[in-house]
């Protein structure tokens, strides 16, 4: 009759997977040795916590198709509970080594997942998104109403150096905090990856693809979403706890719409369709928010524009772009696209420069003209009120835009042809 397999053969992909995880662990260990400037360590630490947060968010977005505008409540509330627990431990009232503090955050996040998730998962799709927005606003407003717990405007602070040293680690120096974060990141990433290999993890994918069909194979879709949200809240809470340790402060901003919007940006930019996408998004996002703000006041605007461009031209995120290009290279067809790709990229870059110049000048004019109208742009002194700067900006923008419009069809055609051929090859090989 049928050929039933007695044992499950390990797919040849598996060794590759082990290698990837080992490589990831290695990377985590040696990163601070490579990027050893003072500020870099703090940046790496931040990226680590945001990575966990983004991965937890992708449990909802990428795996469940659930767009949430209020995910920061789980991370933020986790952070608040963790920081209070740490303060209690520092006062000697409870036993909680810092190493385990993120777990308190995780449990808090999970608890609120149980509480809020019951209400939010009653709907799906767009209504769900709006409900999460409402709940997020609710929590944020509540956090300002109860200063006893949330610390009011100033938030709640702590000192992470308390208690006895654990194996000589006091968590005072940033490097020790980094390795704590790296440890939790690795453990959480494994946990969230393992989730994707469980029945619930697979069924949430089915619910994402076709909720109606999922009901007809015996699953209560609301319950599936609810449980996934609870688990996602757990990991978000861990990231909140780590953030509390890293910054030694948690404020109402940690549960606010801004934080929720940011993690949505980062995860989507990174790529919701791949497990590692959110991690890339976290790196890019933290980099932009921390580093870019040193160079320009308009970084907020740039982040928003970048996000829109990704939505319009690369909705699969950076991860997808990378994987697609890798696939083209793998099939040896890159030679057919690199010319048109360069044309598109060059014109985009030109337009980008023009836009940046214009935006920077405009920002300077409206927000800083009290100090005079000249400023330094790319090393050149520019008078933002005079014409030449604007002419340059406008010309670059125009040339770039026109070039983009001209180069895009050619690129689209070449790209489409190449990918169609690759897919045909895959289909035939099956």
């Amino acid at each position, binding site marked *: 009759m*049928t*050929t*039933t*397999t007695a044992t*499950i053969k390990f797919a040849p992909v598996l060794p590759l997977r082990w290698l990837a995880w080992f490589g990831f662990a290695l990377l985590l260990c040696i990163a601070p040795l490579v990027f050893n400037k003072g500020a870099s360590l703090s940046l790496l630490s931040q990226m680590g916590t945001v990575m966990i947060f983004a991965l937890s968010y992708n449990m909802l977005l990428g795996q469940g198709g659930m767009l949430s505008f209020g995910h920061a409540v789980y991370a933020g509330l986790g952070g608040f509970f963790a920081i209070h627990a740490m303060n209690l431990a520092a006062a000697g009232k409870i036993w909680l080594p810092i190493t385990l503090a993120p777990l308190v955050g995780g449990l808090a996040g999970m608890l609120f997942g149980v509480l809020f998730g019951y209400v939010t998962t009653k709907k799906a799709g767009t209504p769900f998104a709006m409900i999460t927005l409402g709940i997020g606003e609710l929590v944020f407003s509540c956090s300002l109403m109860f200063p006893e717990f949330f610390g009011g405007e100033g938030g709640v602070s702590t000192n992470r150096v308390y208690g006895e040293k654990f194996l000589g680690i006091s968590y005072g120096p940033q490097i020790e905090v980094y390795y704590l974060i790296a440890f939790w990141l690795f453990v959480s990433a494994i946990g969230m990856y*393992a*989730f994707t*290999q*469980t*029945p*619930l*993890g*697979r*069924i949430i*994918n*089915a619910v*994402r*693809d*076709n909720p*109606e*069909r*999922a*009901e*007809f*194979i*015996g*699953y*209560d*879709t609301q*319950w*599936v979403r609810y*449980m996934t949200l609870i*688990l996602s809240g757990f990991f978000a809470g861990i990231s909140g706890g780590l953030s509390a340790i890293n910054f030694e402060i948690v404020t109402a901003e940690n549960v606010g719409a801004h934080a929720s919007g940011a993690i949505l940006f980062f995860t989507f930019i990174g790529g919701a369709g791949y497990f590692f996408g959110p991690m890339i998004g976290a790196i890019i996002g933290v980099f932009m928010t921390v580093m870019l703000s040193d160079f320009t006041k308009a970084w907020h605007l740039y982040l928003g524009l970048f996000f829109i461009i990704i939505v319009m031209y690369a909705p699969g995120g950076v991860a997808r772009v990378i994987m697609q290009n890798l696939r083209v290279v793998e099939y040896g067809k890159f030679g057919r696209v690199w010319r048109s790709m360069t044309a598109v990229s060059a014109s985009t870059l030109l337009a980008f420069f023009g836009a940046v110049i214009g935006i920077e000048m405009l920002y300077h004019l409206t927000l800083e003209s009290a100090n005079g109208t000249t400023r330094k742009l790319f090393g050149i002194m520019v008078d933002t009120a005079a014409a030449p700067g604007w002419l340059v900006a406008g010309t670059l923008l125009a040339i770039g835009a026109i070039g983009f419009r001209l180069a895009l069809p050619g690129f689209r055609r070449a790209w489409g042809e190449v990918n169609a051929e690759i*897919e045909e090859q895959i*289909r035939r090989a*099956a």
Partner: protein
Amino acid sequence: MSNLSVELQDVRKSFGKSEIIRGANLKVPKGERFAIIGPNGAGKSTLFNLISGRFPVSSGDIKLNGKSILGLKPFEINRRGLSRSFQITNIFHRLSVYENLRCAVLWSLGYKYSFWHRLNGLKDTHERAEQVLEQIGLRRRRDTLAGLLTYAEQRALEIGITIAGGADVILLDEPTAGMSRSESDAAVELIRKVTVGKTLLMVEHDMSVVFGLADKIAVVVYGEVIACDTPANIRNNAKVQEAYLGGHAPVAEAGG
């Protein structure tokens, strides 16, 4: 215990002011293959939607294995042993064919909402999914994303998902819609194979499929079941001829 798998008692359904189902009565004994035919707009798909819990009835009763299933949600009805396919292919397009089938068996094998079992280590789900994969003839496409299959392959997968869970009562909504002659024949063979020992309810327009598979035919016109009998008797039924077959018997005489 009732020996009727599905029973409709004076079922009525209105959408707003229009009454689509106007008192439908049907008795489907266990293990029999029923085909539901009727002119377009007669309410065949609506009946399916009512039985499977997609819409609530306006009045009347629907019984599954003797117990009323009014007001139950689709997943509750499914857990009581009824599974259905859809007219417009309804699969998990971002999962592979194998994953589609594996999802379909998870609940029936008792894994429910587990997030502590390792999927790839579950031998029983693997074996059952492979078994169905073989039955529907999609072994070659095991790891292809379901959204990339051809239309006929997707219809076959649709049937596979429907029967994978081991339900006793199978509802197939126009399973051969849009298929060529040879594809339909293959589908009929598949349906015959996989519904051995089960109760089958099938909405169909293709008469050769109907006369080839069905033990009994129920004819639905304007929201009522006007006749329910063996294929031979239906062919000779004057009411049916007038309402549906247009006064003459179908050309294909494929068994009876």
